């Protein structure tokens, strides 16, 4: 690697390095270092990813046969409710916040986040949310069983008669998670607006920062609606108010509006950072500048804006008048325009490059292909007549698992491998990484592709038993699911072994352009000895211009 000899020059003052977390105990303490918090988020959320994955295995086990014969119906209902909740609120959100925490200050040339203590508090709420969620398994009646949407009146039915029940704990956890995310959003937006290094105008920011910025703006306008809806439902459940309870004159459809007003944009909160990760990874492993940088940057903001007016597409068949169905069909379809711009830009970036198919590139390419597939089924779903047929069927389940596993989780893996040397100062094993990729890629498609024919045939989501004609595709999906579960083993093995005894990583093992690659691996506590002065746009591959005026390239 060409940059190895200059490693010493980057940080002549090596003594700063001793402060970077060399002791694992630091990761269990209240640290205000954004890098420690980033890794805390990542490790915590990965733990919950495994928990949510085990719930999925139980469900796929139940669905191997048409009858409800592996677990009780109540257990099955608890499993899909907790699987959805854990995967969203304890895996995808926090893991991406972890990356944003780790990378944003480094990428914009800041020494830390704007509010380091708030940052730490926001993180420590995540384990609290997790403990409450898991604790609900031990209250009478078990965890919430109303699905991650928790639509009333089902979510208001409380057969145990106890005040403390799974649904109450669920709502409490979701509300706390909302508060934590709002804290994070305030912190990210402030950091990105206020703490950029001199010379870094908005159009010199890396696209990951653009993506985080757009995503966190969605959090600011959307989360209050979800949190309010959750609190109102909690009051209906515990204090006898009648916001949503039809038996007392409330309107359950109102809850659907509160819920989806946030929970659809939430998809973009998750996917935008993944788009940012793609935009960081493709140029490096293609050795080309990102094609159409400015348009790609602006398209993130456009997605954030349009995301605010699409939520009713989840409610086409739930008492929505025709004119509203059609308006939201059009707005929903328009999301494909800025998204399409991004996809074309990535393809053009890769085209004619000098590709290196390292593990991060493999994961990013696999995720991009599965995202294109998910985008196409997404357009189908946005069309009202098609949605009338496939709404609440496995077609939808297949579509969003292509988004959330095929794209988001695979994109997260790409990011973990790509920045692993930076975060740990060690290299991972490339061959184990590739084994992981192929298991995960095959597993994802085996698991989620069969859900599309199942949905077109009319198999509903959230059922513990089904008609025998659906069994064939369900067996394939379950086998794919078990393969997917197994694919995490080489990953865990690789990460643990490499972190302990991997080859030492240089500052910039991928010869990547970006501020985070100018500091040592792992970066010193204060990130930059001297705040960099930015003189050019990011992604200058193939051009020999320097990125900064005062740091060695």
């Amino acid at each position, binding site marked *: 690697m060409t940059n190895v000899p200059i490693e010493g020059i980057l940080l002549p003052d090596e003594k700063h390095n001793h402060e970077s977390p060399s002791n694992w105990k630091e990761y269990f303490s209240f640290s205000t270092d954004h890098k420690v918090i980033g890794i805390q988020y990542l490790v915590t959320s990965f733990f919950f990813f495994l928990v949510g994955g085990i719930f999925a295995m139980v469900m796929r086990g139940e669905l191997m046969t048409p009858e409800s*014969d*592996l677990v*009780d*119906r*109540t*257990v099955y209902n608890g499993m899909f409710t907790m699987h959805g909740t854990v995967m969203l609120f304890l895996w995808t959100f926090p893991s991406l916040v972890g990356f944003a925490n780790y990378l944003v200050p480094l990428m914009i040339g800041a020494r830390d986040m704007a509010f380091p203590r708030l940052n730490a508090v926001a993180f420590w709420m995540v384990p609290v949310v997790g403990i409450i969620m898991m604790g609900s398994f031990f209250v009478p009646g*078990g965890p919430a069983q*109303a699905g991650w949407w928790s639509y009333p*009146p*089902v979510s208001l*039915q409380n*057969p145990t008669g106890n005040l403390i029940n799974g649904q109450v704990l669920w709502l409490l956890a979701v509300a706390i998670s909302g508060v934590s995310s709002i804290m994070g959003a305030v912190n990210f937006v402030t950091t990105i607006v206020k703490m950029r290094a001199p010379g870094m105008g908005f159009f010199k920011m890396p696209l990951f920062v653009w993506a985080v910025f757009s995503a966190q703006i969605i959090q600011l306008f959307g989360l209050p609606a979800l949190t309010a809806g959750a609190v109102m439902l909690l009051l209906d459940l515990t204090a006898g108010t009648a916001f949503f309870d*039809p038996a007392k004159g409330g*309107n*359950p459809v109102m809850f659907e509006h509160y819920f989806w007003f946030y929970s659809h944009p939430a998809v973009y909160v998750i996917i935008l950072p993944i788009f940012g990760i793609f935009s960081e990874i493709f140029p490096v492993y293609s*050795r*080309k*500048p990102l*094609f*159409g*940088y400015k*348009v790609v940057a602006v398209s993130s903001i456009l997605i954030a804006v349009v995301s605010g007016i699409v939520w009713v597409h989840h409610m086409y068949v*739930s*008492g929505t*008048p*025709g*004119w509203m169905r*059609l308006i939201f*069909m*059009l707005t929903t*379809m328009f999301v*494909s325009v800025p998204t399409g*711009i991004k996809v074309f830009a990535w*393809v*053009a970036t*890769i085209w*004619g*490059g*000098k*590709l290196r*198919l390292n593990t991060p590139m493999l994961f990013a*390419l696999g995720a991009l292909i599965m995202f*294109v597939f998910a985008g*196409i089924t997404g*357009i*189908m779903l946005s*069309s*009202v*007549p*098609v949605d*009338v*047929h496939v709404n*609440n069927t496995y077609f939808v389940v297949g579509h969003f698992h292509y988004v959330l596993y095929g794209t988001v989780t695979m994109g997260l893996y790409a990011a973990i491998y790509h920045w692993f040397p930076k975060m740990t100062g060690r290299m991972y094993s490339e061959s184990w990484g590739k084994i992981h990729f192929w298991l995960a890629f095959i597993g994802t498609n085996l698991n989620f592709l069969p859900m599309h024919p199942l949905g*077109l045939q*009319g198999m509903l*989501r959230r*059922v513990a*038993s089904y008609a025998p004609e659906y069994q064939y595709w369900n067996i394939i999906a379950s086998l794919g699911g078990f393969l997917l579960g197994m694919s995490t083993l080489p990953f865990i093995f690789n990460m643990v072994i490499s972190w302990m005894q991997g080859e030492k990583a240089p500052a910039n093992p991928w010869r990547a352009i970006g501020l985070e690659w100018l500091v040592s691996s792992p970066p010193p506590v204060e990130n930059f000895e001297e705040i960099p002065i930015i003189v050019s746009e990011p992604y200058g*591959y*193939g051009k020999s211009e320097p990125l900064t005026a005062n740091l060695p390239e």
Partner: protein
Amino acid sequence: MKIQKILNILTLLTGAIAVTVTSLWIGKQAYSWLPPQAAAESLLIDDLISFLVTLGSFIFLGVTSTLMYSVIFHRAIKDDFTDGPAIEGNITLEVVWTAIPVLLVLWIAGYSYQVYEQMGIQGPSEIVHLHNPLGMESAYAEPKDAPANTLAEPVEKIDVLAKQWAWVFHYPERDITSTELHLPSDRRIRLALKSQDVLHGFYIPAFRLKQDIIPNHAIDFEFTPIRPGKYRLTDSQYSGTYFATMQANVVVESPEDYQQWLAQAATQKPSVAKNQAASEYAQTSNQSVQTGWVTVPPAAPPLVNSPG
């Protein structure tokens, strides 16, 4: 140099033709992925699905084959650590690939709107009080491909009651109740959907039709069955513990058979219908993992003239 250019164009053309032909073929296959077409609306929806599958396949194959071409032919040679060409963008190209999705979206939305209007499936009557500009008045219009003998005027309104976890159908003219939905073929049907407790969803996959049922809301739903046979009605909106068991038979028959069934059912004394949720609740279940988590007890099995 010139030969190279011609070869490139030929490659591109061959690729484009291959992708187009494959997409058209996949689009044709789409019909075989769907249940039988038992309602007039399903003909319209299936055409739309086939169209979207064709278009989607074209985009998917186009993007992935370009990517695969790069992955195969644009690999860095071992030990070549130089950069690729520093191409940062191309305004014309970017304008074109923004305009194409915009036009596609307008096309898809226009076609979907047309289909939706022809379906005229109605909806929650009390919400649709404004005279909206999009002209939902066409509700009684016949679906495009409906058989010629279809009557535009709906038959008597059938009341559909959903409860945890049973479907009950009431035919008001003869005051008959049933747990099986009998419908005359080639007639416009109008249902009045009601829920006794929680949200439910009325869904017959063979009809491609679905509508949520909301407590305290009167929701009208219209469609035209066209193919005699026995189909499944399922609850499509999660309704609690025994959600999966909330199914019923839908029998589409000739108008004569339908009248005969009505007359025959009218002579029957009401009896208790079979109900899977109630019987599962009464029995200790035989699952291997049991927790004994309490559940909402199912509503009493309905008393009906025709228990199906």
